[in-house]
């Protein structure tokens, strides 16, 4: 590896291994990580826990009443929100609102926060859809895995703004995957960094791996199924979004290594790929509405 890149890689890791520099995931989200759906959780307890953060509470109520969920009834309290949306969805929502807090306030964030948020949310939804299609079961919520897969980019943009954006530009120009160009220019990549950040939050190994390896699934990894789900969710979401991601254009999904691994691991023979893509379009539409309506609250 070129000396310049070696040096840069060292700098990145030095910065990364200093806990002070890492984004802080709101404590509530971290606490919720260990709330599982099977555990008998008192709704009142959970509502009390969440209500300690008034702005989060307000956001939850607002989004619960929006077209994103299109609930039949108005939600007037946290407890109602928990009952109507269910524990899993409340967790998903809290994580979504938490990811917004990871954006550094002071430095100029070069890429489009709104687009980043939308991509993260929809990748999460797509991961859920794929989990259902393949009839899989994960300890970690696939939504959360999809939601957090690109958090490494936030770190890179904040501390290595110039180099990271050079890599982004070159990837576009040369028609290559960002992941590959990062390896060439930075000596590391947003997936590894994201995984390291998730580790610093003491997240489950399954989730760390899903973030770390979403661009290079390896069947020897014991968490390979969630890794593949996030990998495919990312690619499919990119293919339905506005901006061009040339490396994947012209894709036959059955050629994807991650897809092949998932197929080998399940008994399903027939897949309605078109339907999955149309559902992703719906999710993009829904998240568009919510993010655009709430961007003043969020950012």
């Amino acid at each position: 590896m070129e000396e310049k890149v070696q040096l840069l890689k060292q700098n990145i890791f030095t910065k990364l291994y200093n806990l002070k520099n890492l984004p802080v995931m709101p404590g509530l989200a971290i606490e919720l990580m260990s709330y599982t759906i099977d555990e008998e959780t008192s709704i009142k307890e959970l509502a009390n826990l969440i209500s300690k953060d008034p702005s989060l509470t307000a956001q939850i109520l607002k989004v619960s009443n929006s077209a994103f969920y299109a609930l039949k009834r108005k939600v007037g309290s946290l407890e109602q929100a928990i009952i109507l949306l269910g524990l899993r969805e409340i967790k998903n929502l809290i994580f979504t609102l938490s990811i917004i807090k990871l954006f550094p306030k002071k430095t100029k964030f070069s890429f489009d926060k709104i687009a980043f948020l939308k991509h993260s949310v929809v990748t999460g939804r797509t991961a859920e859809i794929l989990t259902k299609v393949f009839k899989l079961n994960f300890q970690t919520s696939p939504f959360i895995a999809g939601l957090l897969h690109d958090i490494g980019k936030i770190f890179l943009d904040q501390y290595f703004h110039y180099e990271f954006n050079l890599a982004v530009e070159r990837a576009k120009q040369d028609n290559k995957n960002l992941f590959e160009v990062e390896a060439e220019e930075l000596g590391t990549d947003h997936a590894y960094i994201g995984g390291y950040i998730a580790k610093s939050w003491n997240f489950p190994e399954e989730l760390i791996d899903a973030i770390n390896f979403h661009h290079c699934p390896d069947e020897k990894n014991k968490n390979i199924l969630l890794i593949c789900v996030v990998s495919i969710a990312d690619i499919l979401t990119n293919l339905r979004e506005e901006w061009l991601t040339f490396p994947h254009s012209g894709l036959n999904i059955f050629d994807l290594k991650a897809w092949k691994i998932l197929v080998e691991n399940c008994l399903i023979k027939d897949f309605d790929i078109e339907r999955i893509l149309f559902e992703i379009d719906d999710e993009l539409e829904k998240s568009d509405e919510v993010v655009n309506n709430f961007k003043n609250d969020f950012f």
Partner: protein
Amino acid sequence: MYIEIEKTKNEKRIITDEEFCFLRDFIYDKCGIYFRIEKKYLIEDKVIERMAHLNLRSVSDYIYYLKYNEKKDQEITVLYDYITINETSFFRNEPQFTVLKEEILDEIISRGNNLGLKYLKVWSAGCSSGEEPYTLSIVLNDYFESLKSTENKGNNKNNQSYNNWYFDILATDISQSVLNKAIKGVYGEYSLRTTDPKIISRCFNKISEKEYEIKNQYRQNVKFKKLNLLDNNDLSLLPSFDIIFCRNVLIYFDLNAKKKVLDSFYNLLKPNGYLFLGHSESLHGITSAFKLVLFQKALVYKKEV
């Protein structure tokens, strides 16, 4: 009894998201077209109208009717006509044309250059009033023009030769009256609502306050012909095509007719040729002969050989 009816008349009936999903899934399974949530409002009014007309009180009753009633086929046709509003316009669903000119054409042209066959044939099946074939003509004309000029300037990218290439577009429809309109080539602002104004000024002549006529340069590659997709005699006269566009046409056919048409398409496509359907249409469950290829915001089917 009287009071009940009155009450129902005054309530504004809307379809819940759940009912919409039932209806949407039924339509998707029945005819391979997926209605996105954003289209819910389109369906809502019409479905309620039909329910009132048929004296049905719930959406699930209506779906039951669509599935089991002896008059279900008629009703499905009526529903389609109501909900598939005439969507045709120039550059309708632009991502498909972007993918065509930025990815698919390069592939086909380079293959043609290698084989020494410099003729591109495109079929707009179900061309309606002509917006689609003329759009294709604009896209193809621009593609070849820009590549020829690049080559002539000496910037021969990829060592491809774009000179001496020909292309033609066959545009067919079952209705002569609609073909006549297409041949006339005059359009109003509505047809041009999804078109870049620069293209409008370059490719059309404004012949009156609100009317635009397609320029001759874009007519010469397009040939209109009356054709029934289910008529073997009509089909037997056709050549092979590199690309077929058949958007929002198959939805009107029942399963057997769909299979028959798709079979014909497969046979009429050259090896590694492409088929474009409507952006919410799916071949899933109908035929697995074609390979699904995913481009940016466009699903395209390929006769992969």
